[in-house]
């Protein structure tokens, strides 16, 4: 290959080299020989044309997808020396540098992989390291085309020196990552390598952090970040945060020359494309993925960007809006979703002229046996079952096709009125102009717009349907009135007798309790709105319970009062069922639901007051319910249940019966303290109940020996003279 260089002119050499390159392209087996052959000709001392050709050929060869990463190893090892010489040999032609650095970028993962498997061969790693530090040194001051390659080189280093999640595409070299580097090789310290990668990533992202207006570098950076975000989890948050803080529209504040316009549009679109791509393709940003919580932020950023862009390129924005409106008005023929037509399995022959029966009109089969079959003989329930099954399994296209066929038949029937004819004529497309007829047929858009808000689409369709004129088909309206449908009303529901109603009330009320399990407890954080708040206004569990309590207390207030009294033994009325369920609900977890109990009892008490005031002799429920509740949980009370104190303090009314129940607690020495403390609380904080509370304490003192010391203490303070009178009485 290496022809005697002196004998040939540069142009002749280039022709020869070009021929060699074509040979390698057509027969990949020759790659190695040809690459090694050209190395001496393209070194740093060669003429500039040869160096450029050589550097570009090396970049091409090291990147070619024809060779596997194994096959590239010896190739890469062979060219490292030349690459290093080209980069360090004082060569500062930007084309040579750009291509050499691109070649180095392709070499990097190959060498990392190789050195991991052949750690004794440190020489090539040292060469690669030298190349790397040279590139990183010239990066800052390089001209833009060279900088592009430096960015890409840094990206490959980051890719090779961070841990992978194994999601990369099957392209050689992309899967070389930090987790492939064992800790055993001393000069490949994974921690140092990762630290270096982090530093390089920051350097890459610098262009975004500085809000650079150099679109070339911004685009080049953004367009190589995707694989890092998707396959190197440790980089992804850093990159995304950086992008979300980047303002690609900053340049729009300067005067809009044609070039600036191109730059602004480019950076905005590139940023948006990358984010949309990540939302669409990165599983970790999908629902359930670890980064899902960030996707909302990304969406917002995308929307904000889009709005600002429309503001900046106002004219373009307006043009789009108009186009959209037209599309909405006439239906966008170009974007219509249609499927490839299938060969219709049924044919629907048009009916010959003349009178026909409806049966003939709707008969699509051509089998005479089936045609003569009288479908009305099938019992209706069976027929409906058959129809439902058939509709569920029928191919939509066949159905559409058949419906269209029947419609066609109907149309041929109608004497075409003048208006219908005009409509039909208007619908006929005019003569096609071959030059301007649209060629773009429907596209299924599978790779196009990410379908972020399908819900909106549905809504749009519904809106469109709403505003569409009512579909009165002309042929039904005119001429053939017999085919039109008359007004249809549902038959009135059968009357419900009280017994059935109460029977139905049971399941109905159990459904009322269904939402409780799914409704969230709003927690105590919520600031209380005080006495002026509206009950049941916050759609949480508390609100729903308020609704339930009122249903049980007031739903039938004033209606069935007297009747219910009489029908004592009959089935429970609706509100009694709810009461029962509310009672059970509270007792299921009475410690935590004591608040519910208080709320409910308050409602009961209030309702009782209303009943009393109305003068009707309706039943009162408060006392009964309160006693029942207390009886329900009193057996489970332990010394720690301070809720008892709270319950007694908060329920709207106390009476002797209720407090009498408390005495029972003193039978257990462990709960004496709790009981008496609760009483003391009532005595101190609830003056209207003070007397009955003290009476209770006094009774406790009398009845329970174990409780005496504590009870005596309270009595001495709050009912001086009582104990003396008792003991005196006992003494006498």
């Amino acid at each position, binding site marked *: 290959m290496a022809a005697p260089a002196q004998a040939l002119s540069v142009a002749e050499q280039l022709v020869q080299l070009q021929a060699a390159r074509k040979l390698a392209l057509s027969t990949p087996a020759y790659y190695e020989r040809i690459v090694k052959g050209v190395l001496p000709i393209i070194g740093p001392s060669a003429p*500039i044309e040869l160096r450029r050709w050589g550097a570009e050929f090396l970049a*091409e060869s090291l990147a070619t997808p024809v060779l596997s990463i194994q096959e590239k190893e010896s190739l890469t090892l062979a060219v490292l020396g030349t690459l290093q010489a080209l980069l360090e040999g004082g060569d500062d032609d930007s084309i040579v540098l750009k291509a050499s650095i*691109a070649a180095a970028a392709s070499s990097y993962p190959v060498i990392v992989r190789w050195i991991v498997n052949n750690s004794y061969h440190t020489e090539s790693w040292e060469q690669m390291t030298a190349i790397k530090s040279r590139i990183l040194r010239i990066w800052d001051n390089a001209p*833009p*085309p060279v900088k592009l390659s430096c960015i890409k080189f840094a990206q490959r280093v980051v890719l090779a020196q961070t841990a992978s999640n194994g999601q990369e595409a099957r392209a050689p070299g992309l899967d070389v990552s930090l987790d492939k580097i064992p800790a055993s090789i001393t000069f490949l310290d994974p921690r140092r390598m990762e630290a270096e990668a982090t530093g390089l990533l920051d350097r890459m992202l610098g262009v975004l952090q500085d809000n650079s207006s150099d679109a070339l570098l911004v685009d080049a950076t953004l*367009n190589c970040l995707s694989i890092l975000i998707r396959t190197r989890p440790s980089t992804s948050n850093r990159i995304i945060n950086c992008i979300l803080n980047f303002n690609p529209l900053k340049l729009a504040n300067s005067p809009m020359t044609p070039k*600036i316009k191109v730059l602004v549009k480019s950076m905005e679109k590139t940023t948006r494309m990358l984010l949309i791509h990540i939302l669409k393709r990165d599983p970790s940003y999908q629902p359930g993925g670890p980064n899902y919580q960030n996707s909302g932020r990304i969406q917002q950023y995308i929307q904000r960007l889009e709005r600002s862009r429309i503001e900046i390129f106002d004219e373009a924005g307006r043009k789009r809006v108009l186009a959209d409106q037209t599309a909405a008005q006439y239906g966008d023929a170009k974007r219509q979703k249609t499927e490839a037509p299938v060969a219709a399995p049924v044919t629907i022959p048009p009916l010959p002229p003349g009178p026909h029966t409806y049966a003939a009109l709707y008969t699509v089969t051509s089998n005479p046996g089936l045609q003569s079959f009288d479908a009305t003989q099938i019992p209706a329930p069976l027929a409906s079952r058959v129809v439902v099954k058939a509709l569920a399994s029928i191919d939509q296209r066949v159905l559409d096709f058949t419906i269209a066929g029947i419609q066609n038949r109907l149309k041929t029937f109608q004497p075409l009125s003048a208006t219908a004819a005009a409509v039909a004529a208007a619908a006929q497309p005019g003569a096609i102009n071959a030059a*301007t007829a649209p060629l*773009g047929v429907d596209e299924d858009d599978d790779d196009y717009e990410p379908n972020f808000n399908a819900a909106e689409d549905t809504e749009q369709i519904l809106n469109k349907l709403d505003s569409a004129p009512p579909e009165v088909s002309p042929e039904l309206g005119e001429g053939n009135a017999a085919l039109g449908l008359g007004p249809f009303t549902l038959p009135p529901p059968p009357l419900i007798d009280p017994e059935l109603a109460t029977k139905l009330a049971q399941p109905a009320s159990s459904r009322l309790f269904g939402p409780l399990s799914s409704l969230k407890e709003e927690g105590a954080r919520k600031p209380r709105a005080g006495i002026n708040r509206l009950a049941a206004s916050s759609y949480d569990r508390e609100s729903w319970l308020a609704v339930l309590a009122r249903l049980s207390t007031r739903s039938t207030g004033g209606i069935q009062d007297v009747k219910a009294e009489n029908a004592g033994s009959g089935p429970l009325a609706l509100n009694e069922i709810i009461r029962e369920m509310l009672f059970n609900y509270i007792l299921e977890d009475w410690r935590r639901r004591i608040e519910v109990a208080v709320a409910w009892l308050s409602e009961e008490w209030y309702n009782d007051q209303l009943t009393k005031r109305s003068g009707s002799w309706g039943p009162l429920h408060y006392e009964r319910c309160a006693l029942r509740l207390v009886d329900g949980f009193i057996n489970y009370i332990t010394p720690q249940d301070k809720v008892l104190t709270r319950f007694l303090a908060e329920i709207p009314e106390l009476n002797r019966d209720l407090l009498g129940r408390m005495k029972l607690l003193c039978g257990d020495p462990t709960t004496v303290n709790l009981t008496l403390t609760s009483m003391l609380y009532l005595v101190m904080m609830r003056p209207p109940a003070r007397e009955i509370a003290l009476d209770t304490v006094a009774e406790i003192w009398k009845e329970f020996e174990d409780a005496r010391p504590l009870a005596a203490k309270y009595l001495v303070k709050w009912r001086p003279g009582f104990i003396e009178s008792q003991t005196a009485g006992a003494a006498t």
Partner: protein
Amino acid sequence: MEATNGSSAAAMPPQNGHREDPGGFKLKFCTVCASNQNRSMEGHLRLALANYPVISFGTGSLVRLPGPTITQPNVYKFNETSYDSIYRELDAKDPRLYRANGLLNMLGRNRNIKWGPERWQDWQIGMPRTKQQTDKGYEGMEAGVADVVITCEERCWDAVIDDLLNRGSPLNRAVHVINIDIKDNHEEASVGGRAIVDLADSLNKVAVEEREKTGASAFDSGSGREGFDERVPEVLGEWQERWPHLPATWTLAWF
């Protein structure tokens, strides 16, 4: 503003004209539309006639051509169907219709350019294209890479960028991806084809200038030292002034 597309592009070569090959450095182009039939093929042909290395692709999932009604398009698979077979099929179906709407004319042109429509997403970038030697614009495309990708519709540009992001840029090769919005009909495709050649000429001129500068150091920050890549936006901005009705978008991406 009564500016019309290409109003000031006075130095355009004669329409559809084959022009002399001046030789020298050539940028490699790739044109892309939805079905690789009309706009990208018009661009492909024009660029090939202007002696540029060029390949072309479609980004749709299927090749779609108009049928007898809007809901009955003719649908073909990419990479498996030749222009010639589509031509023959449509000619057999309804020669009058497909001649009247220009499809047969278009397919007749396309079958002389290359074998069949190719899908962008299935393109193995960098795979040597040694079997396509009879394609128009083959010369220079042997290595199967391009310097500039020109798409003819915004969503094709989006599809190309999304695909490149997805591939993960294994080749470390920069590529300029430019969208030119061209309506999908024969007339606009023809106008767009001229605009594409105009852009290609402008870009290539800059690239040749970069190549011709030798000797001076890349690190001199003197004037006139700008390389091709950084001048692309400027060239595109100037081009946009000449073709105001073909809105363009650009980015620098990676193969």
